[in-house]
């Protein structure tokens, strides 16, 4: 490990460091139309670099995306975590959900935990989530997390984006 990436746990999920084990699932995701909400399709070589980038993000920021793994099945479900690459308006709680994890509240469970990690462990006072204007499922999840739509802007690469503001650290129990 270049830097220690912690492992978190929820009822159904393990949240751990991104690894090469996640590559085929991510490559499948980025070859599919599901990727439209997070910048569109990517080739295998781009996905490999994207995975490496998420690990490097941890090294540079001291936090980053966790890989989400379902305890019962061992299935890779996607990513969630505190995230702040160059060009972001401020640090966010991000998430991306693989098809295998759809419709069972897994993203909600993971994002709830990683938001708590950002507030309790990293000491953030506030957090946003950046969501593509076209990504309605992600907006639904933001609402379920009690985030509210704050503003919109055009990102040079990702297009029309919405800034959703989570309840402040002190407000959440």
């Amino acid at each position, binding site marked *: *490990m270049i830097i220690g990436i912690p492992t978190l746990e929820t009822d159904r999920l393990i949240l751990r460091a991104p690894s090469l084990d996640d590559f085929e699932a991510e490559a499948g995701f980025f070859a599919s139309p599901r990727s439209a909400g997070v910048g569109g399709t990517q080739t295998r070589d781009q996905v490999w670099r994207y995975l490496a980038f998420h690990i490097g993000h941890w090294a540079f920021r001291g936090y980053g995306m966790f890989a989400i793994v379902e305890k019962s099945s061992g299935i890779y479900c996607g990513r969630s975590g505190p995230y702040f690459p160059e*060009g972001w308006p401020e640090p966010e709680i991000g998430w991306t959900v693989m098809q295998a994890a759809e419709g069972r509240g897994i993203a909600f469970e993971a994002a709830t935990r990683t938001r708590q990690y950002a507030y309790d462990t990293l000491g953030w006072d506030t957090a946003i989530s950046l969501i593509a204007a076209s990504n309605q499922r992600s907006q639904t999840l933001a609402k379920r997390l009690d985030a509210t739509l704050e503003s919109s802007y055009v990102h040079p690469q990702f297009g029309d984006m919405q800034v959703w503001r989570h309840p402040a650290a002190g407000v959440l129990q």
Partner: protein
Amino acid sequence: MQIPTLETQRLTLRENRLSDFEPLVEFYADPIRSAGFGGVLNRNDAWRWLASSIGHWQLRGYGFWTVEEKATGLFAGMVGLWSPEGWREPELGWILAANAEGRGIAYEAALAARTYTYDVMGWDTLTSNIIPGTTRSIALAERLGAKLDGSYHNDHMGGEILVYRHPSPAELDNDGNVEAYT
């Protein structure tokens, strides 16, 4: 894993840091300098590239070092082993900052990285991938004793790429240099 630090007479080869970002942005903004390394990248993408360089170490156990000039502390470039998805075999790669040009710095750094790869990691062969027409890089490969050994289609680099094969450990002297002909 720990990223090792290497030292040469004039250089320190160390892990990538966020302080390398601004000089890397400058490198990637220069269409001529970046042409041999995939072309121009904006700030956001340069940040992601630098992070992916760190992640490469985690995923492969080796990667690019940042080359720092001891005398000035300045970022001089990057050199190291690169084998992301889509590469035919691991390669020794390098980029050079404008301020480090013309003083044999890339040669000194690449030699240190190659020596480490052979002597410490125990590899017995090494290539460098070079985009056709990158004449300064080809000149460095040749100065390192590498010889053209075919080409392959590299999707990520957008076309055919030249493969230069370095001398094997047995073909090098104790300093990592090519044996002088007598």
